[in-house]
């Protein structure tokens, strides 16, 4: 299944910005079997990066233990209304996705 767009919300309270992300990804662990007993190959996000106006504010590594359609929430210092927050991930098959929002 092709991954859909991420849903991102970034809100600044003047001193810090809260970012909420809902990713759309199957996150197959590689442990599950399909109806005929064959292993379903692992397919999950391995790296996630969030940038604020080009500066990296969060970098993380995901593994097979993360749930399908992961939800991630974090805060960083700084950020003002109108700034851009961009989030991208790479999965173990090399697929990538980047989405961007304007801070509100």
């Amino acid at each position, binding site marked *: 299944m092709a991954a859909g767009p991420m849903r991102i919300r970034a809100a600044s309270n003047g001193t810090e910005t809260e970012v*909420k992300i*809902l990713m759309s990804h199957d996150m197959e662990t590689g442990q599950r079997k399909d109806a005929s007993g064959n292993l379903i190959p692992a397919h999950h996000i391995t790296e996630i990066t969030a940038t604020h106006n080009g500066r990296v504010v969060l970098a993380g590594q995901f593994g097979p233990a993360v749930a399908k359609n992961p*939800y991630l929430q974090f805060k960083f210092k700084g950020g003002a209304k109108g700034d851009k927050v961009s989030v991208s991930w790479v999965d173990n098959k090399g697929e990538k996705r980047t989405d961007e929002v304007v801070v509100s």
Partner: protein
Amino acid sequence: MSRLTELALVAALMFGATGSHAAGRYEGIGRAATPAEVKAWDIDVRPDFKGLPAGSGSVDHGMEVWEAKCASCHGTFGESNEVFTPIVGGTTKEDIETGRVGAYIRGDAPQRTTLMKVATVSTLWDYIHRAMPWNAPKSLSVDDTYAVLAYILNLGEIVPADFVLSDRNIADVQKRMPNRNGMTTRHGLWDVKGKPDVKNVACMKDCRTDITIGSSLPDYARDAHGDLSAQNRTVGPVRGQHTGNATAAAAIKPHPALELMKKNGCSGCHGIDSKVLGPGFREVAKRYKDDKGAESSLSARIRKGSSGNWGDVAMPAQSQVSDADLGALVKWILSGSPEN
């Protein structure tokens, strides 16, 4: 009141309102309901959109209302599984084409979300308008209800981000509901002549006339995990029996604040002992036991809402609680939430 009784009452009121031929049958009993009385009862919105008030709301405005009034329980993206099952998720573009949620056919859905289940968009509108937000039902305006619904539909990718939902285009949205063809009506719950989902054939010969209970769990085994009923949330259908000493449990009268707490919707987010979404009441009492100003500060926080003291989830303002109830509840919480 059950929906069935409600419908029956509406029907009865309408019947009365139609006038003279009714008066002939029930002469001297009551009076015909006035149109205003009938209108007050007749609040439902039907799948053919009868009863739907005119109005409109955009996805963008819906997002603002959602953040303010809905997100604290349902999550920013309707994804939260903490208090309720998620609103959004589990539906695909193919489902929107076919009108059947494929996850049911394949059997690969770990759980059911609202958008997977609901067949008629009118039901969503009606429910949100009548029952949401939980702490202040019926407080959303008609336009806000359209907006919130548009936001939910956008999260489910049923409508685009620049969509404005209104009474004029809601019928088109119905044609894109993921489970619109998933509702069956050929069964006993829908039609009295339909096939019932249980079967009870009357015994006609050699029937037992008396029933004796052959075995049951002894008290010490029933009691192995304490009183099960005390371990369930006080909202929703009861899921645990009183176990242990039955007569002792019946003799204890519940504290009146428990009733107040249910009435005002507190138990949706707070447990007595432990955290649900917000802190448990006894945790609150423990933290503020040496704080002399706790009574007024807690009252203010309940009335106006509060955030950041117990975690990320904000407490919405509880404007519906009367001053007397608020005072009684705060005193009860600070006294350690006795249950009787």
